[in-house]
């Protein structure tokens, strides 16, 4: 099948691309501005394939200055979203450890002790920074639900009749011919979990297009396939990652939180874990944590830490009595500009988070992603008007030129060194961000980013001084016998209190999936998480992929192999960067492959 432009993935980047593009596809009298290259006389054919079952199932905890969004919607049309509010108040909270289980370096312990002695400095176990650093500040910004926003943008686009959006249609691979991307192949349908034809088999169709727009996010299979095929630009690599896990909650009726309140947190439950709480209208709030790849816990996890984070006194005073509406998780590519791939080539262009647009200093990604999409659309319209094709040179002179001249690139450069200090430790990291922010990126705390698989220590090293190797072995054996997760058992042993489930907000991980994430697995698709060399998993002593799996979809079978349960997968992609076994040093490919699959989260509120 042929199209003029085919897009892979529908998120803020593709939303920005299609919104900007569609405004240029019709003349003022409503007639098509450009012709289909296959059928002259008919309008340009623009299609977008999204793997999840609806356009509104994206995940993000969005607080944004929204410069690009406001430029695209100057009348503030998005304010009609139910979960939207201008930012009214913003604070950065340094959370002290209310117990004794948090691993805090001695400098932090000393700071905690000093803060506790300062009269009035600590309230509910938290110290509110006297000011929000300007690089972090979301002045004149807004909080909103990404799911609702994507759905609203999709509606606008569909109503225009100028583009076609197809959710529930994963893209399996890019098509190459003579070094050029000539389109995509959709995933096979009607197959069993191994991908063998079954009832209703429909082989993945080829969609050939003059331009393939890749906006499938940080762990999207097409973006990664292009990285494998073309390699990364010299000196570029996506080494730094984080897993963002969030909830959307109904706050208690008597909450004191006002819509538009923004809280950034740091310091707890572990120093490496940052958090956020944003308040929507109608007594609804969203909150969550980020677990980074440089948190060197070989049994790191997210859900348990999220529960401890919510129960910190500074947050629990707001969240006690709240109930879960929604839950979700996603991987974040946190290398920023250093993780930028080749943005264009013959027949393709990359936009959004997978193209390295996220700013790790300002903690902002949605607006940047939207802007890159809008820039590409402007470039494409320029090429269409000049009747040019989508060659690498043409795309460089239009799209890449715009991107290099924009605030996204300029601020990306400022953020480039901002997080290097975290390679050395939490205190150095925070200091490095501050230095970087205040010097416009000129200075930072030195540190060389390592790939996640290069920096995962052994459990014995991580728990040295807290647990002996014998104790760790005993815990591991018990977990294998009982099926308990290793991270839970280890956290219990080193003093993390048990989480008392209340059935409303503090629910089991599986209930968070079912009630909050509404996770579904569309039948007829193959497993999209595949272990490439099962033998390697049998001898792996880390199995961080299992601990970090947001949906508990990965587990260890009796034979020691890793088993995948598609029905629980939320497609966060954490397994991809939490695999400790490298199988290809040249490409950095690990032993887990994360491909195209339908289903996953079905909550439209994340």
């Amino acid at each position, binding site marked *: 099948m042929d199209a003029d432009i085919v897009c892979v993935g529908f998120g803020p980047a593709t939303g920005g691309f299609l919104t900007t593009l569609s405004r240029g596809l019709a003349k003022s009298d409503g007639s098509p501005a450009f012709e289909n290259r296959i059928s002259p006389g008919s309008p340009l054919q623009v299609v977008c394939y999204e793997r999840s079952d609806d356009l*509104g199932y994206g995940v993000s905890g969005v607080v944004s200055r929204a410069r690009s969004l406001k430029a695209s919607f100057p009348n503030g049309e998005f304010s009609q979203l*139910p979960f939207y509010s201008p930012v009214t108040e913003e604070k950065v909270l340094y959370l002290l450890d209310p117990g004794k289980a948090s691993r805090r370096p001695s400098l932090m312990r000393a700071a905690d002790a000093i803060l506790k002695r300062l009269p009035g400095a600590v309230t509910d176990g938290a110290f509110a920074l006297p000011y929000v650093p300007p690089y972090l500040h979301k002045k004149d910004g807004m909080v909103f639900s990404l799911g609702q926003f994507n759905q609203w943008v999709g*509606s606008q686009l569909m109503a225009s009749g100028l583009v076609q959006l197809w959710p529930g249609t994963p893209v399996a691979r890019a098509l190459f011919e003579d070094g050029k991307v000539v389109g995509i192949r959709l995933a096979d349908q009607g197959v069993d979990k191994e991908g063998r034809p079954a009832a209703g088999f*429909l082989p993945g169709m080829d969609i050939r297009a003059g331009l393939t727009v890749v906006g499938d996010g940080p762990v999207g299979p097409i973006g990664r396939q292009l990285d494998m095929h073309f390699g990364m630009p010299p000196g570029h690599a996506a080494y730094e990652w984080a897993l963002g896990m969030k909830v959307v909650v109904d706050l208690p009726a008597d909450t004191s939180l006002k819509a538009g309140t923004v809280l950034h947190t740091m310091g707890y439950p572990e120093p490496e874990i940052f958090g956020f709480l944003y308040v929507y209208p109608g007594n609804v709030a969203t909150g969550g944590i980020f677990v980074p790849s440089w948190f060197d816990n070989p049994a790191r996890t997210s859900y348990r830490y999220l529960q401890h984070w919510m129960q910190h006194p500074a947050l629990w005073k707001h969240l006690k009595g709240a109930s879960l509406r929604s839950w979700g998780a996603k991987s974040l590519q946190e290398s920023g500009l250093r993780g930028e791939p080749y943005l264009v080539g013959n027949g393709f262009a990359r936009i959004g988070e997978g193209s390295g647009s996220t700013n790790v200093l300002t903690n902002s990604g949605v607006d940047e992603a939207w802007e890159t999409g809008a820039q590409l659309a402007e470039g494409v319209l320029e090429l269409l008007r000049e009747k040019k094709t989508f060659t690498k040179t043409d795309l460089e002179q239009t799209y890449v030129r715009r991107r290099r001249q924009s605030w996204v690139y300029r601020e990306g450069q400022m953020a480039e060194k901002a997080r290097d200090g975290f390679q050395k430790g939490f205190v150095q990291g925070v200091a490095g961000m501050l230095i970087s922010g205040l010097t416009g990126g000129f200075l930072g705390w030195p540190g060389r980013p390592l790939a996640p698989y290069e920096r995962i220590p052994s459990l014995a090293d991580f728990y040295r001084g807290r647990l002996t190797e014998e104790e760790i072995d005993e815990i591991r054996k018990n977990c294998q016998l009982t099926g308990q997760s290793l991270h839970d058992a280890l956290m219990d042993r080193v003093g993390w209190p048990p989480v008392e489930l209340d059935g409303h907000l503090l629910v089991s991980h*599986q209930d968070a999936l079912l009630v909050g994430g509404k996770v579904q697995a569309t039948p007829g698709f193959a497993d999209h998480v595949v272990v490439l060399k099962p033998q390697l998993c049998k001898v792996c002593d880390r199995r961080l992929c299992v601990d970090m799996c947001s949906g508990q979809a990965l587990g260890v079978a009796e034979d020691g192999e890793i088993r995948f349960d598609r029905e629980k997968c939320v497609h966060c992609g954490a397994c991809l960067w939490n695999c400790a076994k490298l199988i290809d040093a040249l490409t950095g490919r690990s032993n887990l492959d994360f491909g195209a699959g339908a289903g996953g989260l079905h909550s*439209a509120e994340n």
Partner: protein
Amino acid sequence: MAFFHIVVCGGLVPDPLQTLEPVSGPAGWSLKNESLLPSILDPWAANALYEADALAKANPGSKVWLASAAPKVKLQQVLMALAQKAPFELLPVDAPAGGFTDAVECALALAGAVQSIEGLDRSRLLLFGGWESASRGAGATLSVLGEKLGLTEQFQGVDKLTVDGDGSLEILERVEGGKHQVSVLSSPPAVLGWATGGRAEPPNNPQIGMANMRALMPSLQKARAAKLPGDGLTLKSVSLPRQKRNTQVVKDMPVEQIAVEIVEWIKKKP
């Protein structure tokens, strides 16, 4: 083989997976944030559509229409999920669809849409739909619509339709006591309210989708509006089932063990 003109009546319902909050306002009951709640084609009606698609494929010259009364923006959203699955023409009625509409008003609006079909051969008409609705379970719209169109041969709870060699229709219909009744109809027109049917959800076929959309979006733009004010209908209260969950997801557990666990759980309830 004879052709059929199959009109599938399918309402949209809020995706039951979402957080649904009924709220009462001056205009009556609705769902909180309804405009941005994802919708789906009523699952019973979806079965009917897939059966219609299979019947049309097996009987060349047949044609399928989908008549639906729902807000345009919702129809548009559902088309994204549906239009790759089966070829059909759309008969849209721009109307509320939150589950609080009156079956008679809805049937009247749909009757107008069906009567507006150009070239519809009434002698070959099969009016398909769901025998129930996932929104409020009234299940009356299709019956009323059939009556308004003068279609007196009505079958509800249909699980199977077979076209015999002489063109007659053999219909397997659910009746009381978990049994089926077999009826033979010499020829259309007829109303068939489908139960689960026997068709799996078709895969997404991009070619069908692209061809469908060329006609569906212009049809949608021309949707006739219907208010469905609910005159004479009073909903005294609306509530959702209360739930408190503590789920465990297990695989390959013998049914006997599941039953034992459920019995133990029930015994623990106060």
